């Protein structure tokens, strides 16, 4: 389960949540969009939405109906496998047009169609007027992901949540889709939350990164800081596990063990069983988020120092390295 996650997404910023599968990334995103599986509930906390108009509201307290209104307009989502979100029996253009109709963004059929074609063009689908009539299975994986992005963008959302949007794609297509998402953010004044297990995707597109392990944020920092100066043992392990393209050791330095399959409630640091620091305290007490430097925080007793806990408003120590 995901617990006590604090994530801030600045306007027009692209923020990433990175971690291995089963670590709670998708759960975080879904809870933002309120499509939590029925067994999951937000038991505490809030999700504060800062509207550009200056209005502030807590999404957690919103009623079901208002939430549905916001999904697709204020917040939109794209997933790893577009095929599961697209209706195989319906022309892609009509599916996108549905979004306009449901949210009453454009009721005039002709105008709606024109807007859809414009959007297909914006996501760089060649011959948009012809592709409007295509069925999902007639398109390649990359094209289908573009359709999903068009469908997400047609409501002019302020936040796009992308859950492993390029995982099923080839590197070549991945590069194009990432470029497209970045351009969309700039053109439409939109923010994005990228959820991925792929460090390459994060380094390529995100401004700020949260590293998650078993539902807990272990480290957060601006992208260049995270890759240049990773502090948490988990982040370091993740990075050293990735084979390089131009430079490789004889053997990769890996994190020992596996992500536990059945997880029991645990008082200490989730990572301590696999951590190279063998410190007793870690088994009994979860570390607070320590501030390392401007915008860089880690949740680690050993590397974070013992006397800085930003959550309790205590003093903040500068970390030496």
């Amino acid at each position: 389960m995901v617990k006590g996650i604090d994530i801030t997404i600045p306007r027009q910023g692209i923020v990433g949540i990175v971690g291995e599968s089963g670590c709670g990334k998708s759960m975080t995103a879904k809870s933002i969009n309120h499509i939590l599986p029925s067994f999951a509930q937000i038991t505490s906390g809030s999700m504060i939405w800062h509207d550009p108009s200056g209005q502030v509201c807590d999404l957690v307290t919103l009623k079901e109906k208002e939430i549905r209104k916001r999904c697709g307009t204020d917040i939109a989502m794209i997933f790893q496998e577009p095929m599961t979100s697209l209706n195989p029996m319906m022309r892609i253009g009509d599916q996108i047009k549905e979004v306009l109709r449901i949210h009453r963004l454009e009721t005039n059929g002709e105008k709606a169609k024109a807007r859809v074609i414009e959007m297909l063009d914006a996501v760089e689908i060649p011959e948009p007027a012809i592709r409007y009539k295509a069925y999902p299975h007639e398109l390649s994986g990359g094209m289908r992901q573009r359709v999903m992005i068009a469908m997400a963008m047609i409501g002019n959302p302020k936040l796009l949540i992308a859950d492993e949007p390029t995982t099923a794609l080839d590197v070549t297509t991945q590069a194009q889709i990432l470029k497209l998402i970045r351009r969309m953010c700039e053109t439409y004044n939109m923010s994005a939350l990228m959820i991925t297990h792929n460090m390459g995707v994060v380094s390529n597109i995100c401004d700020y990164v949260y590293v998650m392990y078993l539902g807990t944020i272990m480290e957060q920092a601006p992208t260049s800081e995270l890759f240049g100066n990773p502090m948490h043992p988990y982040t370091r392990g993740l990075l050293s596990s990735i084979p390089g393209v131009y430079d490789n050791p004889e053997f990769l330095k890996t994190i020992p063990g596996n992500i536990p399959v059945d997880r029991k409630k645990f008082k200490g640091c989730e990572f301590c069983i696999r951590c190279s620091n063998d410190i007793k305290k870690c088994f009994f007490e979860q570390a607070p988020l320590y501030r390392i430097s401007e915008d860089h925080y880690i949740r680690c007793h050993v590397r974070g120092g013992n006397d800085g806990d930003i959550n309790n408003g205590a003093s903040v120590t500068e970390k030496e390295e």
Partner: protein
Amino acid sequence: MEDRLILSASHLKKSFRTGRNNNVLAVNDVSLEVIKGETLAIVGESGCGKSTLARILMRMIDADEGSIYFEGEEISGLPEKKLRVCRRMMQMVFQDPASSLDPRMKIRDIISEPLLAWKVYDSRSKREDRILELLELVDLKEDCLDRYPHQFSGGQRQRIGIARAIALNPKLLICDESVSALDVCVQAQILNLLKSLKQKMGLTCLFISHDLAVVSFIADRVCVMKNGQICEMAPASRIYNDPQHEYTKYLLSCIPQI
């Protein structure tokens, strides 16, 4: 055929019928040589024909044209009966360990299946010794033997698949996207395992992947495929540092830099 080669293929062609008047040329005039002891990687985008090529080389499917030599002997065109030795010497590790392991079989039976099929050991105890030896090679504990595949994580299942593949001491191991579905940490563990097994057992490896970073870690030589054809084949350092073909350059440019 030269002694230094374990496998060679020339002018392989394979097309599939995809409609009444539609054919895809999945493998289009491919020739390659695999040198004993090396890891040769085949990279390319999905659909470029990597898996089809692997299945042709293993004689799982037949090519329309071309010939294949394994250890100096032509195996293309050989009837199934005469393929026995080469079947034993070539083994495959698949992408999805979940679907390549029978869910109703215990790990013990999965690993001993090839040993039984080939009647390698005449006594049960010798077979049991070999199973334990295999487990140790892939870093699994003995207590896993009486469990079923679904009780393991993806990485552990891949270890089981590898144990089964090396049970008969094959000479050539073909890994088709064997680490592609795994998370980075597990992927790193399995890559290390494959590399160390290769050293310990003197294996030759044909490593198929769409991931150029993974290939860079494991391959001695790299063969870049596009639309069923090989567009560049060279030592790994050459492919990465001095690519000749435009398509190789393009693929490299698409990798997000960390």
